[in-house]
């Protein structure tokens, strides 16, 4: 089964602009919003919260966490899915990451 998910919210800007080019206020966040593109009942979002979500052992260990959200959480313009930025490297293998394009976010 393929699970397509995307980083949405303020931290999605990291997909388009290198961290060292951004002001500190734009890079430092404790939580990252993760939205699944095919998650109508938000069960996948709940799984994210369960595994690496708020107050989880992951949160306690690393000092940040993921929050599973619905794509309906963000008010996004038409065509936002077509403009997603894809991040694919050794860290994302075997998957790939999607982040909102900055002007969309």
């Amino acid at each position: 089964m393929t699970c397509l998910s995307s980083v949405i919210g303020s931290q999605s800007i990291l997909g388009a602009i290198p961290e060292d080019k951004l002001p500190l206020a734009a890079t430092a966040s404790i939580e990252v919003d993760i939205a699944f593109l095919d998650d109508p009942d938000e069960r996948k979002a709940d799984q994210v919260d369960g595994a690496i979500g708020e107050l989880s052992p992951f949160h306690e260990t690393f000092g940040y966490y993921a929050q599973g959200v619905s794509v309906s959480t963000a008010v996004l313009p038409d065509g936002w899915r077509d403009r997603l930025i894809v991040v694919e490297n050794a860290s994302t293998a075997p998957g790939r990451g999607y982040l909102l394009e900055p002007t969309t976010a």
Partner: protein
Amino acid sequence: MATHQLTRPPAPGPDRRTPWKSRTDRRAFSRLHTAHRKPKIHNPPRTTTQSRSVNPGSDATAPPTDNRQRETGTGRTADDDGRQGADGARISRCGVCPTDGTFAERNWPSQRLLPARESRVRRADRLGGVIRERALVAFCGAALTPRVLGMGESSVAFLAFGMHACGVTVRDGELLTTGEAAALLGSSRQHVVDMCEQGRLPHVKAGTHRRLRRADVEAVLHPELTRDQLKSLWLHQAVAGRLVADPGSVLSKARVNLDRLRQVHPDGMAAIWLDRWRATLEVGVEAVLDALTSRAPYAVELRQNSPFAGVLPETERRAVLAAFASRWRERHVA
């Protein structure tokens, strides 16, 4: 040291701009904000979040003092960091302010403080809808100056804290008149009446007069929490349960977490929110409980940067998440 003095606003006069749309609005606003001047026969018990009480019989010229060890005129021992304002009002530290009152006392003499802040307080009142005690809000607003917050001058920032600050004085069971509700909403009394008539605002009738619960009026101001915000609230309510059962170990755990989180997030907004958590922890258990369980925007933001990871056993955390998901689907997936 400058004398901290709480002044009353000047009475409306011909040379003073009156922002109220009608005499009814003005009277309603005045009733909301001057109740503390009148000695009350019935003195309702302080709620856990109420942080200011009034002592009308005290010396009006007395400078602020540390009255931790003495009795106030109300017969209540001031044992919660309470202080004596110049007009006799006894002021406790605001629950979640990142500083204590000494900053305001030292840097914001009252003559500068209240007049300058009054319009913002009124705006905060309109947006937050829960400010009742002007002096406390002004006090908190002064303590939360941009210099303290480390951010630029911004009425939005003030309003955010103003809403928080006023949140400490809410009593849910209180009934408001339509004029008072209009003052909180920043609308006309007729608009409130219209909302009542349309069923958008719950109310009761006392004879021919409508009365509204403060919580219902505030619900108009504050939209419902999003799913993820509500989920976070559930988790932190579970943390609150642990906190009241064992405050020492929970607060200790939070402090340890904060130290580690500040190393991971040395700057940026996360660092600012973490510092606000630290200040909240220093205030005490009740301030932390307020932050853990409040629906106010300030608390929602604060919880997103929570230092309470590890307080809930993983089985309990999972159980809370499962219960939340089940409850949410019951209500939203029909």
